[in-house]
């Protein structure tokens, strides 16, 4: 069954097609959820909500633009929505931090799990901004609109996020070294 056929079948609420669609995309979308969420359980909740929204709104998908992009957008929206309703945007000091290039040395031995873990440990808004900007290529302008913040805040949040991540990675590496010694 082609993807288009699958989408058409999903539009008429065909359970089998929905299951098929889920199988095709769940892993990819779950990775997004993991990045945007605080932990695994929350990511699963988000994925669930995202798919419910997808199935409900799939009839609105007019096959222009990539379907995967559409799915990703909905998933990201769902993840953001979760923070809107939960109301846990932390208050951060908005003063600008210089957007210096933070560099990392010798990243090879850092595991993906650890990187994911430190992303999830970021304060909520730092995490969202970092993901939107770095992982999903949104501009500061987009992010500002999506999160109802100013572009300045977005930039400063990103810088803060980078700083925290860098610190943690450096910390991690020194620990690794001390272990190996």
């Amino acid at each position, binding site marked *: 069954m082609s993807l288009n056929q699958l989408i058409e079948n999903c539009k008429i*609420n065909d*359970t089998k097609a*929905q*299951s098929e669609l*889920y199988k095709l995309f*769940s*892993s*990819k979308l*779950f*990775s997004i*959820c*993991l*990045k945007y969420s605080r932990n695994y359980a929350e*990511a*699963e909740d988000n*994925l*669930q909500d995202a*798919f*419910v929204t997808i*199935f*409900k709104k799939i009839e*609105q998908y*007019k096959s222009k633009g990539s379907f995967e992009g559409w799915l990703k*957008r909905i998933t*990201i*929206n769902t993840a*953001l*929505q979760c*923070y*809107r*309703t*939960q*109301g*846990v*945007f932390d*208050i951060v000091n908005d003063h600008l931090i210089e957007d210096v*290039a*933070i*560099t*990392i*040395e*010798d*990243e090879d031995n*850092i595991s*993906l799990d650890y*990187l*994911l873990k430190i*992303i999830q440990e970021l304060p909520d808004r730092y995490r969202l901004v970092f993901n939107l900007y*770095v*992982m999903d290529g949104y501009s500061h302008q987009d992010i500002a*609109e*999506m*999160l*109802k*913040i*100013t572009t300045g805040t977005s930039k400063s949040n990103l810088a803060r996020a*980078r700083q925290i*991540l*860098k610190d943690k*990675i450096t910390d991690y590496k020194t620990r690794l070294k001390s272990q190996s010694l």
Partner: protein
Amino acid sequence: MSEKKHIDRLFQEKFKDFEAKPSSNVWSGIQNKMEQPLQKPKKVLPLWLRFASIAAALVLLFTIGNLAFNNNDKENNNINVVDTNLENKNTTPNTSNTKTINSVSNNTINTSEKTNSKSSEYNLLENKSVVIDDKSKSKHNIQTNKDNVNSLNSKALNTEGVSNQNTANTINYVASPNKKNFNNLVSTSINKADLNTSKDSQSIAQRNSTDKKDSSVSINLNPNSAINNNNSVVTNNKNSTNNNTRLTNENNLESTITNNNVTKNISSNSTINNDDNPNNKNTIDTNNAISNTVVATTNSDKEKEEEKKMEPDSANSSNTIEEALAKIEDLDEKEEENVDRWSVNANAAPVYYNTLGKGSHIHDQFIDNTKNGEINTSYGVNVGYALNNRLRVRSGVNKLNLSYDTANVIVYENVTNTPSSTPLRNIDFVPTSNGQNISVLSSNSLSIQQIDNFINDDLNAALSQRISYFEVPLELEYAVVNKRFGVNLIGGFSTFILSNNEVVTEVDNRKTKIGEANNINNLSFSANAGIGLDYKFNKAIKFNLEPTFKYQINAYSETSGNFRPYIIGVYTGFSYKF
């Protein structure tokens, strides 16, 4: 190897092919969620709309039709409420009549009493403190109503009795909105109470939303509107019957306004980040319940918000992140939805004009003459706007030519300047070129002998009334079958603006204009009903065939006998959607 790398690159590369398999209970969770709410909200709204619109169309038709019949039957002394009222005003108070009216008003007030007490019971469930107020208010209300009735009884004034009946009716009618109104009171007061608790979080909300002004304004509105409600209830009690109706109406209006506020409030409440507050959740629930009944929206919070997104109005009041995100998408979707809403339709039709009753629009003497409608033409352009995929409102302009013949008429020229026989009161004659006046007689009014003696056959003519109108229809079209071949039900009304009017005589196909009717109203109306058949060539172009019946109202100011004109037209044409 210590290669320096930007931290962004590190993450981008690491997560480039990152995929993770969710546990199986996610899918089962999705299935569970999908099974319940998906079908319901999609279907409820259109169904409700369908019935409502059909009902509205029917009510419209009946009221117009009824009005028309009553107007025509005025001469037959058919009694309706307004008539008796007027008659009684002129004559001395009719005791039996007043009695019935009073008893009726008593009855209706009793029923309204019941509904009132019902509503107060309803309140009891909602909120006790408010109930006490409401109860006393509604009791008070009833008492004033009773007082009014009593005073009216003693006065036995007919006119007021009638108006009282009206009041009772409206109270009765209003009773269910009242319920909502009271609910509103409850919910708004809850909101008010909530305001204090949510003030803290409001500051957070303010931080988060740049357009916070809107949301805070809608919150501020609430206590005001609650006060308004109270005010109107109180003044309600004070005022007398006539004012009462007006006020309850206002109340009604206000309830809808506050309902709007409430619905706005939902969104603003949910934008306030306040999940620790259980009260707030409660209000959202109750608000939901209310707006469910009022706006007939969907059940769950999320769906409400989705709908909100669709509404441009609420876009201002609720500034949610999700909304901002979806804005671009939704705009696209909206544009696509709107693409097919408008359509233009050009049509032409053979129209047949005749009358239901036996009568003449010209003169009494022609009542028994044979008369026949003629087939003429109508053509015009319509514009349609689709409310949804089944309902369409349309309007336009049509040019309509009508003619109606009265046969067996004798036309002769008077030599004297003053017409000898009684002139036809409904026709203004134009003098002929040689300064002679024209008189018209029904050949039926002459005995056969006279005809033989006096009249040549060729003087036995027909009198033809030619009318042309500009017609502005306003019609609702409901698609029963909406496939390639479609079937529609059409209901509505038309406004006719008189553009031309002449009376011609036809003798041996010689037509001469003899004057024009003076009893044709410049503005008249019709109630329309029809069945539309259409065939869609493609998405944009459609062929229509619409046999339509139009019952004319207020077409003539004075007619003889029972002259009730109607128009039957088979409107054919093409419509183009864009």
